[in-house]
């Protein structure tokens, strides 16, 4: 159990000739909660998408739960099973009910029997406080509800690690707090989490570490108090002034 949850070494990523990630090094311990922030285009999404290989990386190594991510397809499938991801735009399956969205992967991937999968799904739907929406279709829910379904869907796979990519930025202000609440309660249960977000209140409350990225590099990292009160770099200070001033 002393293998780190994630360990990234010298990660390089190109889009064509554009150098999107420049030698990223990052180690995440089990149970650690990390918030990633930084200006738009700084490579935050790209980094966490590399972690469950929605993007292929071009150099360096990524090691998740002791397994290295390489061209071996078996490895990828294994890792994706253990790493959940919540997208900014939810990406629910619109042709399935909320319940079906949640039971699909456990049944297909983990071969959980239907009844068990449904029980599990209902448990997580309760955890995100929308058990009553189980039989609706995603199109019939509000944005906040949809995002909570997306979280529940990830949880149903019982992942070791949960990645969030700006999970609240597509939401209306009232709905943001609903979703943040759910995330906070997840965090309190000790799940390993990496969360790209600009919700500084949330970061202060739950993050063990804040990572600040700019132009494809990790510029600064540290505890939330450190980062928010006394950023070590100018770039960080400037970014903070913008975000907080807004």
């Amino acid at each position, binding site marked *: 159990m002393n293998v780190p949850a994630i360990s990234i070494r010298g990660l390089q990523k190109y889009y064509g000739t554009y150098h999107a990630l420049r030698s990223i090094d990052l180690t995440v311990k089990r149970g650690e909660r990390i918030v990633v922030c930084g200006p738009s285009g700084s490579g935050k999404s790209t980094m966490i998408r590399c972690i469950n290989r929605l993007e292929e990386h071009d150099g360096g190594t990524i090691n998740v739960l002791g397994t290295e991510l390489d061209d071996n397809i078996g490895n990828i499938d294994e890792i994706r099973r253990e790493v959940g991801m919540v997208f900014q735009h939810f990406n629910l399956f619109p*042709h399935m009910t909320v319940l079906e969205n949640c039971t699909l992967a456990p049944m297909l*991937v983990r071969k959980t029997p239907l009844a068990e999968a449904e029980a599990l799904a209902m448990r997580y739907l309760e955890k995100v406080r929308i058990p009553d929406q189980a039989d609706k279709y995603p*199109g019939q829910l509000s944005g906040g509800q949809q995002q909570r379904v997306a979280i529940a869907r990830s949880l149903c796979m019982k992942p070791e690690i949960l990645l969030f990519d700006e999970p609240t930025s597509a939401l209306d202000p009232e709905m943001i707090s609903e979703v943040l609440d759910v995330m906070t309660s997840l965090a309190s249960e000790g799940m390993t989490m990496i969360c790209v977000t600009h919700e500084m209140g949330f970061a202060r409350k739950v993050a063990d570490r804040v990572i600040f990225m700019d132009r494809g590099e990790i510029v600064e990292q540290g505890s939330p108090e450190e980062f928010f009160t006394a950023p070590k770099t100018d770039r960080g200070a400037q970014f903070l002034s913008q975000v907080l001033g807004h």
Partner: protein
Amino acid sequence: MMTLLQHQKSRNALLQILYVGVLLALVVTAALTARHNLQAQGILSGWSFLWKSTGWDMTFSLLPTSSSDPYWWFLLMGVLNTLFLGIIGLAFATLVGGLVGLARVSENKAARLLGTIYLEIFRNIPLIVQVFFWYALANRLPSPRQAIEAGGALLSNRGIYLPGLNIAGWSVAAGFLALAIGSALLLWLSLARRFRRVAPALRRRRASTVALVTLGTLMVLFFLGHAPDSPLLTLPELKGLNIRGGYRIQPEIYALAFAIAIYGGAYIGEIVRGGFIAVGRGQTEAAKALGLSEWQSFTRIRLPLAVRAMLPILTNQYVWLIKATTLGIVVGFADFFMVVASAITHSGQTLELIGILMAGFLIINFSLAAVMNRINRAIALKGHQNRS
């Protein structure tokens, strides 16, 4: 009067009355002129010709016809032939289109290249030229005596002969019915919303029950329809001038169906491609992130969503393909249009027959569109789809 025209409501009413009135007047004038012209030439008009015997024979029909059958029966058989060819054409065009569309969205560049070449060639040559070409090719297969044999099937310029069951016509028909019901039931079991929540094992058990019952019914039907002391299976073989036994598909039919499938497939391929592109990348990524395999994400997520995106356009394409069966006339397949055209030359009842032709196609195409729209409504995504 001027004030009436200035007044919006009255002007609107007037405009509408005028428009509809002019259209009606046109139709009525046309009808009157036609009647006058026909009378002046001593051409008998009316519908009584429908009950006269034709004196010629149909080249192909699903139910028996002879030269002593009346016109209405021939016309009906023509409609059946159109539907028959239409269904075959649609099915194969969909199959081809699916393959081409998949090739065109595939990750594999070779497949994409092949798909593109296919598309550009077959989409850009008029269907009628393609029909001529395939028919000429079909006619160049060897004669029955030199027929190519492939696993009991014979390939010759008289058609493709498949091994057949030696059973009576009615039991074949009943067999098809049973098969249709069985597969419809299976489809319903696997797709209907109400069975979604049933455990997969139970679903599989139900499905296999249905399949077994259908098979059993088929066996019984075949047994009943089979003359007691003849072999059950007939292989096509040369007898006299022609190949006898087994089932035969005439060159006219398969050339036409082939042309329609190839040409329609090119168009449907583009629709399929559009459908898959319409599925947001997000859905695919979500499926990956959940650990679904390529195949699972294809069958459970991408395909169902793509089908929903394609269906409305596909309806148009299907209507269009049904209309393409009218090219039967250039290779002598007795589709509805050709029967009508022949009936016109033999009976001279031009106006009546053209009327029947139009009514027939309106009914066929409106029903097709209605069915497709019904399916579309049934599988439409629920709620607002403002996010992808």
